[in-house]
């Protein structure tokens, strides 16, 4: 069976996908307040030098996220 969602860390560099929802409610609060809404296109820019953090772009805004935060972001396949 095909998976319906993937999470942000699965994106390759310069790959984009649409955000569907956020699994952790507290993080959802933070992300939506920052304007990262379900439906937004998220582009993976690069991984941090020592891993464990991601540099992404959402509507021209640059964000840094930890892996455990990025894993809460569900994306379209």
């Amino acid at each position, binding site marked *: 069976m095909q998976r319906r969602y993937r999470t942000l860390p699965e994106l390759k560099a310069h790959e984009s996908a649409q955000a569907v929802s956020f699994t952790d409610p507290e993080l959802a609060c933070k992300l*939506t307040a920052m*304007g990262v809404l379900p439906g937004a296109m998220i582009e993976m820019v690069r991984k941090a030098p020592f891993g464990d953090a991601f540099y992404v772009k959402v509507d021209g805004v640059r*964000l840094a996220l930890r892996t455990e935060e990025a894993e809460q972001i569900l994306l379209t396949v």
Partner: protein
Amino acid sequence: MNKDAQQLQPLKVGLVGNPNSGKSTVFNQLTGLRQKTGNFPGVTVEIKEGSFTLPKGRRVSLVDFPGAYSLYPTSSDEKVLAEVLTHTTDPHFPDVLVYIADVTHLEKHLLLFTQILDLQIPAILALNMIDLAAAEGIKITVQPLAAKLGVPVVLVNGRTGENIAQLSAVIEQMESISPVLTKPFYKFSDDETSVSDAIKHNFGISNAYRALLLAHHKDWLPFLNSAEKAILGTITETKQFQSLRAQVEETLSRFDRFTPIVQEAIQHPPVFPTTTTDRIDAVLTHRVAGPFIFVGVMMLVFSCIFYGYEITGGWVEGLMGWLIEKAEAAVAPLQIAWLTDFITKGILEGLKGVLVFVPQVALLSFLIAMLEESGYLTRVVFMFDKMMRRFGMNGRSIVALIGGGACAVPAIKGTRTIGNWKERIITIMVTPFISCSARIPVYMVLIPIALPRAGWWIWAQVFGAMYVLGVVTALASGWVLNKILKTREASFLTLQMPVYRVPHWKNVWLTVMDKVKSFVAGVWKPILIITSALWFLSSFGPGDIAEKAKNSASMDITAGVRTDADRGDLEASYKLEYSWAGKVGKFIEPAIRPLGYDWKIGIGILSSFLAREVFNSTMYVIYSLESVGKKEESAAGDEKPFERYATLKDRMMNDRFRDTDQRIYTTATGLSLLVFYALAMQCMSTLVVVKQETGRWRWAILQFLVMGIMAYLFAWVTFLVAS
């Protein structure tokens, strides 16, 4: 209150906006030098207050609130705003709010603004960064925003000061403008309405949104008493109110409503182009190159501070020498020896203790402000988040730790950029472990004493090892503190990385001024008290110690142990031995004997409190080499650093314990003393700054005790192992 009375009160204006909206730049444009930084009561969040005058003469007291995305806070910075705006009797509660929004990302910056609208606080929308918008080809029409949001809208450029005067004029008109928007911006769900109504009824609150916010924040709002919390608890429970879900729903609904308004007002070019920032980040945050570039930048910062210390330290020495000369000349006619001594060695020593750090604080604040303003520090946090988090710190802590390699005082002053309370406290607590410049002269004396037969090559290795010891203990202590300290603050990284910009000179300048002013204001008193106390301890003792010292010196000379040429040095040495400081040294000797130290080292440790390098000058006095010491130190050549203090070294190495007649300075004692100096908290200036930055003596005292105990234990173990 009538109209005249109101005129006497300054108008309270709050500056609000998302992080990276350029709020501080606007604040600096409005207030200039008329600003001060304080701590928000109860929390370590920094709050800036300033004042300025409106065109028609009304005074304004302006508060720069910490940047926030929403009234649903996720950090202690954001909590401050939610706390003040839900508490109408708070001293910081504003008459008018100026909301600063980054016009290049307006579609993301209006959430908090619409929340403020619903609190019915008179507000002005200031669209900032119009220069960037023009450069990116963004077209702005103000009219739809003003009409649909019902507020005055001003286009400003914080960096150039463009339209700041117009913003002032609009603030002035605000008192006569009544809000246009009569209906709330956000329409409550049925649940929210019933919760809000119940709270309005029970608490006598007229604004529905303020009532709802009490329900959301009942657990942490500090102005609520336990009875009020209980009522709020009952209301939210009976209505089955789910705070987190309601917050997300509300946020999404607000975005749904203001996004079309923004789209009407702002025309973006169709795609987001790859900008200079992307190109810079491709290099600076590169997986391999990024960390190397960072190491380079930090080496530059370190060199600036290190050589800055050498150069400006010389200036301060020169200035102090001149001042001492002037002071002596001024006081000499009075013929009071102790007064001259007190002024030159007590008060002026204290002044030096403050002055010597001013260039340091200015320089490091300048460098950090440049890194922060340019946008680079945010990238540092991104790159080193994982590495530093293991030790309870933050990417920004690295800057403090490296600055600590020069001097802990400016480094600790610089930790304000660390937003998270716990990460900041840990950084402040561990930074003094890093070997600072003041330890270098002490290491230079002690290393050859500890390893007399080793060559300079080994000495240099040991010298390097002292730095490693500092770094390892700092990180290990961070790791331990991370386990011990608890914080209720959720730790998120999720942070926005601003576009790179050339640092704005005015912001950098005002930051440096602010740091220097607050440093001097906070430290001069305690430092003066401590230097005066230390002066007293080493100048007085039971009985007439000058007379006793004179007699002892004469006896030595008559006995033929020393020649008459040494008389002055001998008297100084005996005077110190007979003083209270000497008594203290002898009193603590049993306690430090297990580490291999005698009472003379006790005095040295005590006097190091002024600054660690004072250990050397104290040793010169104790070993009756005062006159030699001055020559040796001033003639110091850089070519052979380890031989700089040769005479002192020889005299120290020949010294023996009076009771056992064994040598005091064995390899074991030397190494143990090195470890002690690496780990002990012996710097009063650092302690005072720690108190200043954490707001409590508690942290400074804890740091002093913990570092002292660690130094003692490690020095003891070193002594045991080495013997």
